[in-house]
């Protein structure tokens, strides 16, 4: 089981792949809710990086990486609430959540 140079590299590569999947979802999917899910996946990949560096880096007792990840989770939750509220508002206005049809600022 030595496919990776170190445990840290394994976690970082998983986070990179998760980030790429989230980015592809945000760029490619038509539905606004799926785009938001892609953004959440990207934020989660960043959290995984932070926690992996906290675990394997020097001075984990200072808790810097873990605290950053916890605050990042809180910010992501706020972002999800506002983003989904915006999607519901747009749906009420334009009767669609298809992003290829919502291409104008002017309703």
């Amino acid at each position, binding site marked *: 089981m030595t496919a990776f140079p170190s445990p840290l590299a394994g976690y970082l590569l998983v986070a990179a792949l998760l980030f790429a999947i989230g980015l592809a979802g945000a760029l490619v999917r038509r539905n606004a809710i799926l785009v938001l899910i892609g953004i959440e996946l990207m934020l989660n990949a960043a959290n*995984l990086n932070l926690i992996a560096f906290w675990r394997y880096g020097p001075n984990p007792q200072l808790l810097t990486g873990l605290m950053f990840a916890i605050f990042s989770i809180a910010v992501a939750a706020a972002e999800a609430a506002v983003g989904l509220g915006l999607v519901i508002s747009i749906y009420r206005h334009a009767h669609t959540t298809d992003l290829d049809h919502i291409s104008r600022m002017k309703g």
Partner: protein
Amino acid sequence: MTIVFYLLAALTLAGALAAFLLRHLIHAALAVTVSFAGLALLFLSLDAQFAGFAQILIYIGAVAILVVFAILLTRADIPKEGVFSRSWLVGLIIAAGVFAVLGWAVLESIGGIPQQNLAPAISVHDIGSALVGRYVLPLEIVALLLTSATIGAVIVAMHEREGGK
């Protein structure tokens, strides 16, 4: 690298990939919930118990429910033109390029990073003291942000009055 890590990584990535590929929005929301659970278990395997349980509570408990509510409220049908955007090829190329650059950077630089393998002895007591001690200002700012985000989300999604447009 243990077998547990490979299983959790496979679970997380399979959930994310299924959320990216599935046609039905509800199925995609359930798949992304599986991915969030896999991430929480990865956090636990990294000895970050607090972050792992926070991930379960916030993502599986709150964000997944919010997403399901948004899907049900918008009654989104499967579009006839397919689930992917017109510019899907460009998006896929950008995502593949980003992954190539990130993977290259990780594999190139991993040898130069000092690593220690001792599990950090952190208790919830330490996290609590740090939150109200060294990190009290970010904690207050997050409280303010969550309050304003909740009020903002309600105002944005509130029903518009007739003629108020």
